């Protein structure tokens, strides 16, 4: 069976495909995917990320979800084990890319609909979040594939002026069988609405698999969104994530993107500052070891005057891991008085680790303040020596300094439970870092 036929066969069993509109939409996206194919290293945006590992691990039909997942196959105890502890939030669980009714609770005052339900009952309305823009920057085959194959997701709509008392906590679990999941979320905030959304990707199996997730965010005038994205998938899995944000006047978007897991992960974040006075913060951390590969591509478009963007990404690389950072800031022609700052710091702990970083500026307006910087280095031997004179062992001294390097990214996260959780996880990733848990 050719790929096209296979894709069409797969589409016919997806949510909403009994409706013509949904099916034709999915098929169109499938054709776009077939035309584009997987990104290769000849694509400038994928220069440093080789996807042959993905096809080698998952086979030719790497994109195909293997049938219906067993809903709630993961029992509550397992979920408690994976979830962020002591987190007071509205928890929504996805297992293998499907909304888990039994394990989710919805807050009042906001509209939250699982995409699969919406596709079945109100197909016209559901198509909007599935729209495909092939001309978008950073567009690639995964985007089309996601539009074609999305099994589920959340459509969140927060009305004007509503402030949610607790964060929305979206926990994605790769189930025991290890599956391919195509997830699509759409989050829209009315004017002056405020919410924190925590997207957490985790898993409970050693099975290989792929998560291909896309989150579309729309912020109304003066809306504020804190968006946490914790990628902590098992190191046997592949993670492709994409976030697209549209910001209206005076809105504020903060992204805290943390990549710790997966054999190969790629995260694309695009922010469009479309209204004056809009502000965004992209805060990121990647900690890799073993043979992990973590790739981050971000693009911030200053389309109008008077917007501010801040971007700080840090990376700690150990083992034979490799990380890629590409941050692009584009200041469009009339976007005067733009204030854009970007920095990327990297710590190489091992002789076999590799970092490829490229902070880019593209500026077409003159009255702007734009700066970017990137550093690659190792721990300061003087600092290590100082700590050793204070009685710390070599390993502890190095761990303290490494943790401090990551610390400022974590410190920028306002939510305490999330921060505490990440501190433990990051410590756990350092060599013998557990020793330090009492100190921190």
């Amino acid at each position: 069976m050719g790929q096209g036929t296979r894709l069409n066969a797969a589409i016919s069993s997806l949510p909403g495909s009994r409706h013509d509109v949904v099916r034709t939409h999915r098929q169109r996206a499938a054709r776009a995917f077939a035309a584009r194919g997987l990104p290769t290293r000849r694509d400038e945006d994928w220069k440093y990320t080789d996807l042959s590992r993905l096809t080698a691990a998952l086979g030719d039909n790497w994109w195909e979800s293997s049938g219906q997942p067993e809903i709630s196959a993961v029992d509550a105890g397992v979920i408690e084990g994976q979830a962020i502890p002591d987190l007071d939030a509205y928890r929504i669980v996805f297992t293998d890319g499907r909304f888990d009714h039994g394990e989710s609770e919805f807050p009042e005052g906001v509209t939250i609909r699982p995409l699969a339900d919406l596709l079945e009952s109100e197909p016209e309305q559901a198509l909007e979040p599935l729209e495909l823009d092939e001309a978008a920057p950073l567009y690639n085959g995964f985007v089309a594939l996601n539009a074609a194959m999305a099994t589920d997701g959340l459509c969140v709509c927060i009305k004007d002026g509503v402030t949610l008392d607790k964060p929305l906590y979206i926990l994605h679990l790769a189930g025991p069988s290890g599956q391919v999941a195509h997830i699509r979320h759409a989050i829209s905030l009315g004017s002056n609405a405020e919410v924190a959304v925590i997207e957490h990707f985790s898993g409970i199996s050693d099975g290989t698999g792929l998560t291909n997730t896309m989150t579309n965010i729309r912020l109304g005038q003066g809306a504020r969104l804190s968006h946490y994205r914790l990628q902590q998938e098992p190191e046997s899995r592949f993670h492709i994530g994409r976030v697209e944000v549209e910001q209206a006047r005076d809105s504020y978007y903060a992204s805290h993107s943390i990549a710790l897991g997966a054999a190969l992960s790629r995260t694309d974040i695009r922010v469009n500052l479309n209204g004056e006075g809009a502000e965004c913060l992209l805060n990121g951390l990647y900690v890799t070891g073993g043979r992990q590969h973590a790739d981050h591509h971000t693009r911030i478009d200053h389309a109008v005057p008077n917007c501010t963007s801040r971007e700080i990404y840090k990376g700690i690389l150990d083992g034979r891991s490799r990380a890629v950072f590409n941050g692009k800031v584009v200041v469009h022609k009339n976007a005067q008085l733009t204030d854009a700052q970007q920095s990327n710091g990297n710590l190489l702990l091992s002789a076999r680790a590799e970092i490829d970083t490229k902070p880019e500026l593209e500026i077409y307006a003159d009255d702007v303040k734009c700066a970017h910087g990137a550093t690659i280095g190792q721990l300061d031997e003087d600092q290590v020596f100082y700590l050793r004179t204070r009685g710390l062992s070599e390993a502890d001294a190095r761990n303290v300094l490494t943790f401090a390097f990551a610390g400022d990214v974590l410190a920028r996260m306002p939510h305490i439970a999330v921060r505490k959780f990440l501190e433990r996880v990051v410590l756990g990733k350092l060599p013998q870092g557990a020793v330090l848990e009492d100190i921190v």
Partner: protein
Amino acid sequence: MATDKHVEHLVSSEYKAGFVTDIDADTVPPGLNEDVIRVISAKKHEPDWLLEWRLNAYRHWLTMTEPTWAHVKFKPIDYQAISYYSAPKSKDDGPQSLDEVDPKLLETYEKLGIPLHERAALAGVAVDAVFDSVSVATTFKAKLGEAGVIFCSFSEAVHNHPDLVRQYLGTVVPHTDNFFASLNSAVFTDGSFVLVPKGVKCPMELSTYFRINALNTGQFERTLIVAEEGASVSYLEGCTAPMRDENQLHAAVVELVALDDAKIKYSTVQNWYPGDENGVGGIYNFVTKRGECRGVNSKISWTQVETGSAITWKYPGCVLLGDNSVGEFYSVALTNNYQQADTGTKMIHLGRNTKSTIVSKGISAGHGQQSYRGLVKVGKGAHGSRNYTRCDSLLIGDKCGAHTFPYMEVTNPTAVVEHEATTSKIGEDQLFYCRQRGIPEEDAVSMIVNGFCKDVFQELPMEFAVEAGKLLSVSLEGAVG
């Protein structure tokens, strides 16, 4: 704002070096094929191995496609419409001294304010002036000969020092390197050859003035500079071109080789015709420049001031092979009207304790588009290597653009790599301060821009620094945003 008028005034100011010298040139008809290459080779009485090398390059070039990744836009180049060889007829007479050089040529230099004899006598500079494709005047040969330095045109080197040329040609930029380097390897007509023998410090600054003259003639120079163990040399390259309506392709290749403890300093002032205020005409400057620090403790330093050309596309780079070797890149690039520049450097760290410094200053005015594109690569064995990169952009006017694309690839944990970049416009408060001290706006801008470029200018040899400052003022005076 009154400043708009200044911009207009600047934009409409004519290219001051624009004129055509009417010299009878011996030109090959336009077009490119193996026969043309054979003709070029035959005209230059080249040995068979060089012809073979050219043909290999040409055959490889045919398999390549023109790169499109640069942040520049231009109409496709018709490689069959270019004439690949042009030599002033008078070369047959073989000028032995300045007196014998075609007076029109000398006149040309006079107009440009580069009086050859005066400069040679006063500044002690040996000038190997390339007028179109063949060297017609070489001075101070004797003095350099005493020191054992070989400084001659590339064709002479092929005849007089074939073994040396063969030993080094294409070892830094192979004939398969990239589209334009392959083209150059196939059709290069002349250039300069420098060899500074072991332990010799070159007694004077070496200088070549390139000049594109005959209509429709692309220039394909090839420069090769070798500094043997412990040698040091400073080489100046300067360019101006007469006014033209048609785009001219310039695809040069420069190769530098530094052996143990050797130092090479390569400075460029490039002021080719940038096209008129509507972006018509101008030179396409697609150049491959690379230096290889082969020996331990060697050093290669690139300094460039790029104010001309419609499109500049060049990345002078250093391959730091030898332990403790040092690479430097200092650049000022200015784009005005519809000029486009995609320039930067490549620093490839392979040896231990290698160091590189990159300072790039970009000034963009009018509709100019400017990109810094750089690569810093640290190989597995480059323990303790260090890079510092600083690239700043200054924007003048709201229709120009400044872009930064720095690539950093590091595979060694003991390396330290730093990159910093800022983009801003000329500070209103800086301007205001100067104005309230009675300095006219134009002069104030010139001062501020010169200050912005100071880090780079101070790397230039003295006489070049003066020229660079002047060039910048001519290209920019009054362009206040």
